[in-house]
């Protein structure tokens, strides 16, 4: 059943500028990861997304958290019950 998700994560990694991707649930449990993002980042990613969501009262507007560094940007976004983090190199 998880085949669809795994396949999709592999397809996402085919993008040359993306070096890591991570999916977690609302509690930080890792659902799938590739590349530079792994299990240990699940907790932080889920909490960041949740805290950012509490900044606005609008429940439908899900914010995208961007962590910028000199080794790429990590963008975190929640959709429904899962949170996705993508580590992308600046192009």
């Amino acid at each position, binding site marked *: *059943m*998880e085949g*669809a*998700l795994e*396949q*999709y*994560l592999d397809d*996402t990694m085919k993008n040359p500028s993306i070096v890591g*991707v991570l*999916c977690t649930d609302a509690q930080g449990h890792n*659902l*799938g990861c590739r590349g530079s993002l792994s299990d240990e980042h699940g907790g932080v990613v889920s909490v960041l997304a949740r805290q950012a969501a509490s900044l606005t009262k609008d429940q439908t507007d*899900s914010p*995208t958290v*961007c*962590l*910028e*560094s*000199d*080794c790429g*940007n990590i*963008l975190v*976004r*929640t*959709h*429904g*019950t*899962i*949170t*996705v983090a*993508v580590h*992308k190199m*600046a192009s």
Partner: protein
Amino acid sequence: MGCCYSSESETTEQDVNERKPLIDPNQDRKPTNGMERNTDSLPSNRTDEQAQLTGILQRTALNIIDVSAVDSQGMEQHEYMDRARQYSTKLEVLSRTLSQKKPVPLPSLTSQPHQVLAADLVPFSDVQQVSKIAAYAYSAISQIKVDAKEELVVQFAIP
């Protein structure tokens, strides 16, 4: 009427008042000192105040620690050295444990914050791409569900 010391048989009221002694000789009076006269004149207020003041004085005297008056016992040299050694070992143990409890400093994200801050903003296309990825991932995960193949509750066949 009459001149001084002219006696008249009947005493008038005025005379009675005039001749009444100021200090009653029949009344037994103790020799009074200044204190009694004071208490008699202002009875309740003064005694309360005095009692309160003495109470405060007593409490202060009980609580006060007069450092200058304490006679310090002289310590012998070896005792002094022993104690100094004891205290220094205790301090060493404490400083060791304390240094272990120091919190780990946060890892630094970059050594050149100016460069990162001055760099181009995250392109909106990237943000859109990530939101698309999130949507696809969500739909892929929704395929993970319970697949009921058999009945959970079965009836045992009783022959």
